[in-house]
C-alpha cells in the first residue's frame, strides 16, 4: 500500500513517516523546502505537480492541524485552497481514501465534564487561527466526501502533555493510526444497516485518569479488529 503523508517537515509527520515506513511504501510532501530524499516539495497548486505527486497513491494521511507555520493568510490559504487542490487531484487520480488528522482542540473551550463524542458539534474559535484552520480543513474534506469524490476518515487526536486529561501519547497515536489505516468499515448492506459512508469521524486519545473525551467508537473498532485478527 502506498501512502502519502503531508506536511512532511512537521514533527507529527516525521514521527508518522518513520513508523509507517516499517510496513508501507511511504512518500511525503511539503509546500516548501529542499527537494531532497526526505520529501517531495510540492506547492499543491492546481498543476501537474500535484497530480504527479499522487501517482499510484492509495491513501493520503493529511496533517489537518499544526502541520504548517506562517502568517494567518498563509495558513488559511494552505488549509483551504491547497487542501482543495490536493483532494481534487486525489479524486481525479484514483486515490480512494484520505485520513485527515485533525484535533480535539476543536472542543477545548467546552466544559471538561461534558461527554463529548463524534456526534457533537465542534467549537472552533476565531482567536486562534490554527484552530480555525483545522475546522476549515475538516470542512473541505467533508465536502469532497459529500460529493463522493473520496472516502474520508477524519480523526481528531488528543493534545497536551502526559498530565493532561486530553493526552495522546506518540505510541498510542502510531498504534491507533496503523489500525485506522487497516480498518475497513464492515457494514453489511441489509435493510437494517446503511452502506459504508464516505465521511467518518473518530476521536482518539490515550487511556488516562479522568479521560476527557469519549473514545467508545474507536474502542469498538479496535475490539472488532482484534477479534478478526484472532480468527485469522
Amino acid at each position, binding site marked *: 500500500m502506498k501512502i502519502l503523508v503531508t506536511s512532511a517537515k512537521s514533527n507529527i509527520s516525521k514521527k508518522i513517516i518513520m513508523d509507517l515506513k516499517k510496513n508501507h511504501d511511504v512518500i511525503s510532501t511539503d509546500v516548501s523546502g529542499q527537494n531532497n530524499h526526505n520529501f517531495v516539495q510540492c506547492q499543491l497548486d492546481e498543476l501537474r505537480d500535484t497530480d504527479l505527486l499522487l501517482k499510484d497513491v492509495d491513501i493520503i494521511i493529511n496533517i489537518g492541524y499544526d502541520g504548517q507555520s506562517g502568517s494567518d493568510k498563509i495558513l488559511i490559504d494552505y488549509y483551504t485552497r491547497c487542501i482543495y487542490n490536493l483532494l481534487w487531484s486525489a479524486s481525479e487520480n484514483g486515490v480512494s481514501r484520505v485520513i485527515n488528522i485533525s484535533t480535539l482542540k476543536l472542543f477545548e473551550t467546552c466544559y471538561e465534564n461534558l461527554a463529548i463524542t463524534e456526534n457533537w458539534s465542534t467549537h*472552533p474559535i476565531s482567536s486562534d487561527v490554527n484552530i480555525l484552520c483545522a475546522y476549515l480543513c475538516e470542512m473541505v474534506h467533508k465536502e469532497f466526501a459529500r*460529493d463522493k469524490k473520496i472516502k474520508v476518515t477524519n480523526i481528531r487526536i488528543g493534545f497536551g502533555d502526559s498530565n493532561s486529561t486530553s493526552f495522546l501519547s506518540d505510541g498510542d497515536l502510531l498504534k491507533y493510526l496503523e489500525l485506522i489505516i487497516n480498518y475497513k468499515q464492515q457494514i453489511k448492506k441489509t435493510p437494517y444497516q446503511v452502506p459504508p459512508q464516505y465521511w467518518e469521524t473518530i476521536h482518539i486519545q490515550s487511556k488516562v485518569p479522568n479521560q476527557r473525551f469519549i473514545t467508545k467508537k474507536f474502542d469498538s473498532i479496535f475490539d472488532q479488529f482484534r477479534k478478526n485478527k484472532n480468527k485469522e
Partner: protein
Amino acid sequence: MKVLILGGNGMLGPWVVKAMKTRHEILLTDINSPPKSYKGEFMKLSVDDVEGVVNAAKGMDIIVNLSVLRPHRRIAFEVNTLGNYSMMIAARENNISKVINTGPHFQLVGPQYEEWDFNLNPDMPPQPGTRLYALSKSLGQEVCRVFTEDNNIHVITLLYYNMKHHWDLSGPEQENIDYHLDMNVPYSTTWPDCGEAVRCAVETPIEKLNSRCETFFILPELPHKKFNSSKTFVVLGWKPMYKLESLWTKSNRKPENNNTEAF
C-alpha cells in the same frame, strides 16, 4: 450610518449604492475604479489585504461585503474565503458589531439539497459540495460564523440566486431564454430588489435577529416552494417590487422595445 462597502463595483454594487445613498454615508471600495457616474467616496482596496481592510473600516458602523471572484483556482479562495477573514478581523479590531455578507444560494444549498428537497430554508447546515465558487464562499461564511460565536459581531448573510432586470429576463446563462426551462434555476430577483435587500439588512436592528449569525434567501414568495424565504420578509422587512412572473407562469411577458429602463 457609516457603511464600508467591499467589492462594490461589480454588478450588484451600483444597486446597493442606489438603495442606500440618500440614507447612509458610504465608503465604496473595490480593486477596480468606479464608473464616472459614481459621485461618492471611493478607495481602492483588495479584500485579502487584512491591514488595508482594518484601516478602511476605522470609524465605520457597518461593513457590507459584495466582493466575489468565481472561476479562478487561487483567487477564488483569496477573495471569497480570506476576504471574509479580513472583514471579520476588521470588524473585531474596530468594534463594528454588524456585518452584511452576500453570496450565492449554493454556498448553503449545494446540489445534495437542491436536486433532492423542497422548502429549503436558510437555517439548514451548509452543504456546498466541491464546486469552487460554492465551497470557497461557504468557507468564508464559516469564518464569519466562527467570529460571531466568540465576538460581539452580528453577521447577516444574504443569499441570491439569479439577478435580473424585470424588463429583460435574459442573462449570461443563455442568449434566448427558455422561460420555463429556466425554472431549473428556481429563483431570480430583480436588481433593484437585490439592492434593497442590502439596505433592509443594514437597517434591521440587531435585536430582531435570532442569533448573531443569520442567513436569508433573497427571493420573492414563489408558488413552487422550492426555497422558503418567509424569514426574510418577517425579519428584514424586505418587500420585493417584482416577482418576475414570466419565469414561473405560462404568460410570457415580452417587454416592449423601448420599455428597457426601469429607473
